């Protein structure tokens, strides 16, 4: 066991998979000599060589398409988007080519697209987006969003071993801010299994990614007030762990859905639909959403702060719901 940052845990996961399986290779911009914009792939060029750590021209569509072609040949490409915002430039290759191949003619497409997403570092409208819903709404993809170093390592391994295209969101705010003990050797966290990050009895806060930490902070704030919060960390959104969501709702009977992504069409909607169909009888209050508002991500610190959900906003919603 070593204490690793979120970023180091991801690096270790990729590293171990590359050691384990010679068909795993990396493709992206500035990931070789430079080690990636955030240094996730640092040291990998030296270790694994230029055939397996490949710097590309700036062409996201070609990168994703080429990774798909290699995956069809039995390779296991791991693509880095320098920022997940730029995944929009390779969008068609993801949603039309990679996502649909297996359904259309049965081939496996073992492909991972990973990179930094999310706000909180004053990156402005194009270095801060949470755009996971485009892919959650695309059958044939998997979408993974780890919150802890342990999960980040175990899930990137699961993603690399998966025979389907996986979009892997790394929250840049967590990269160096979150540290935790991570087992040295091989382990896998299965895609599709949620985790109760904190057990509670009054209100279930269901969330994912960086917002797991926000929920935990809110839970601590509310404890002295006698409000017991359960925090469910979804870990992956497609597939997502419906059973775990419903079980938590059945335990707490009140629920807050929390995400950093904007509101309309965000994942909270999906959860609300499932809960209000399948746990309707178990609800003792309205389902509340705490999300970013429906705007691009603004740059200036006070604007970005206003934009982002935080523990205070969660706590306020929880107090309202507790009083219901």
């Amino acid at each position: 066991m070593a204490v690793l940052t979120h970023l180091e845990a991801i690096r270790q996961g990729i590293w171990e998979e590359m050691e384990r399986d010679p068909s795993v290779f990396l493709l992206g911009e500035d990931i070789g000599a430079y080690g990636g914009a955030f240094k996730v792939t640092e040291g990998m060029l030296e270790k694994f060589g230029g055939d397996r750590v490949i710097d590309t021209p700036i062409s996201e569509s070609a990168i994703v398409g080429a990774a798909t072609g290699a995956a069809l040949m039995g390779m296991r490409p791991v693509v880095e988007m320098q920022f997940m915002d730029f995944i929009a430039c390779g969008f068609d290759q993801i949603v039309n080519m990679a996502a649909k191949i297996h359904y259309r003619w049965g081939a496996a497409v073992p492909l991972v697209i990973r990179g930094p997403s999310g706000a909180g570092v004053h990156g402005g409208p194009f270095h801060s987006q949470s755009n996971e819903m485009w892919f959650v709404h695309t059958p044939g993809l998997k979408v993974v969003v780890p919150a802890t170093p342990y999960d980040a390592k175990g899930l990137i391994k699961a993603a690399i071993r998966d025979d389907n295209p996986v979009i892997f969101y790394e929250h840049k705010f967590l990269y160096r801010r979150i540290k935790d003990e991570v087992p040295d050797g091989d382990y896998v966290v299965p895609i599709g299994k949620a985790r109760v990050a904190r057990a509670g009895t009054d209100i279930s806060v269901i969330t994912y990614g960086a917002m797991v930490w926000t929920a935990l902070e809110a839970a601590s704030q509310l404890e002295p007030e006698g409000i017991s919060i359960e925090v469910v960390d979804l870990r992956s959104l497609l597939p997502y762990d419906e059973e775990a969501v419903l079980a938590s709702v059945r335990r707490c009977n009140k629920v807050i859905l929390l995400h950093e992504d904007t509101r309309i069409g965000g994942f909270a909607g999906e959860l609300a639909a499932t809960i209000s169909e399948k746990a309707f009888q178990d609800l003792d209050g309205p389902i509340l959403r705490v999300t970013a508002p429906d705007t691009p991500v603004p740059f200036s610190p006070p604007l970005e702060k206003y934009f982002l959900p935080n523990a205070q906003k969660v706590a306020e919603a929880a107090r309202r719901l507790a009083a219901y």
Partner: protein
Amino acid sequence: MPAVNKARRLKQAPRAPDPSTLERMLYYLKLTREAEYRIERVLYRQGKIVGGVYVGRGQEAIAVGSAIQLVEGDVVLPSHRDFAAFLIRGVSLREIFCNWMGRANGPTRGRENTLHIGNLRLGLIPIISPLGDTCPVACGVGLAFKQRRQQNVVLVHFGEGTSSRGDVHEAMNLAAVMKLPVVFICNNNAYAYSTPASKQYAVRRLSVRGAAYGMPGVTIDGNDVLAVYAGAAAAIGRARAGEGPSFIECKTFRMSGHSAHDAADYVPNELFEREAKKDPILRLEKLLLSRCLVTPQRLAQIDETVRKEVDDAAAFAEASPFPDGAEAVEGVYCGERCFWKDRRAGGGPGRVPA
């Protein structure tokens, strides 16, 4: 019926086909023409084919003259008009007709239509409708070959209209930078749906794009199967030798509407008449006859074989069952209990049937 190309390794392909290859090419040209005719002019009009119908009438020589040279492990990504590529790589006519008619025993089990047929064992990756998308995918196939030090090549076909899409650019640039064994083949048939080439690009020859990326670019007569053969042979040879990608513009003409429902009123009749004279099948027949490489009797035999094969495939497909609707929700993901298990297409290309 001519035998299918034997798997073999070639450092440098010969620039001219031997007599048996010539006859095989004629056979595939004719088989393609007849099969597409049956689909477009017979079955579609009888309402037996639902959905879009695109054919490559008049431009069959491009796929024939190039795919015929592929060997075991090579991969081709045909355009929506390269019917012959599927036949040459070993997909049966029965399978193709079943696919076109949405039958359960077609290779996509009714999920896909037309030539959207993939088969990794046979080295076939199908087009998807968003045009140009296969060009980057071809790069990835070539990249895998390069990483594995495999002397295989990839051919990718696309129309001159498709050449406008960004994906084609990104792919050609990537292939050139990485020296990938990819042959980019532009089937320039003068129209993209109703749009003439003059509204698609502003150069005389698209092959100038080769130089723009740092790869050879040639323009050849796509209705001359020998010219296609020679052009493809040179490019394939370069690719196998590790010298990187090439670009081939094949000039041809779309001797049909864009799809079966399109009367192509926007194409001047003179053009159709002029282009009909360049028909690749007539040209090859004439050549073979003049060189005494084939007899009129043999030609009649081939025609007969072809007609029977198409009859058989059409009858087989018509008699085949439709899939059960409930299958629609299966096989979205590749996993342990795979819907596709019995016909698994994944896992790298296998061998072309010998």
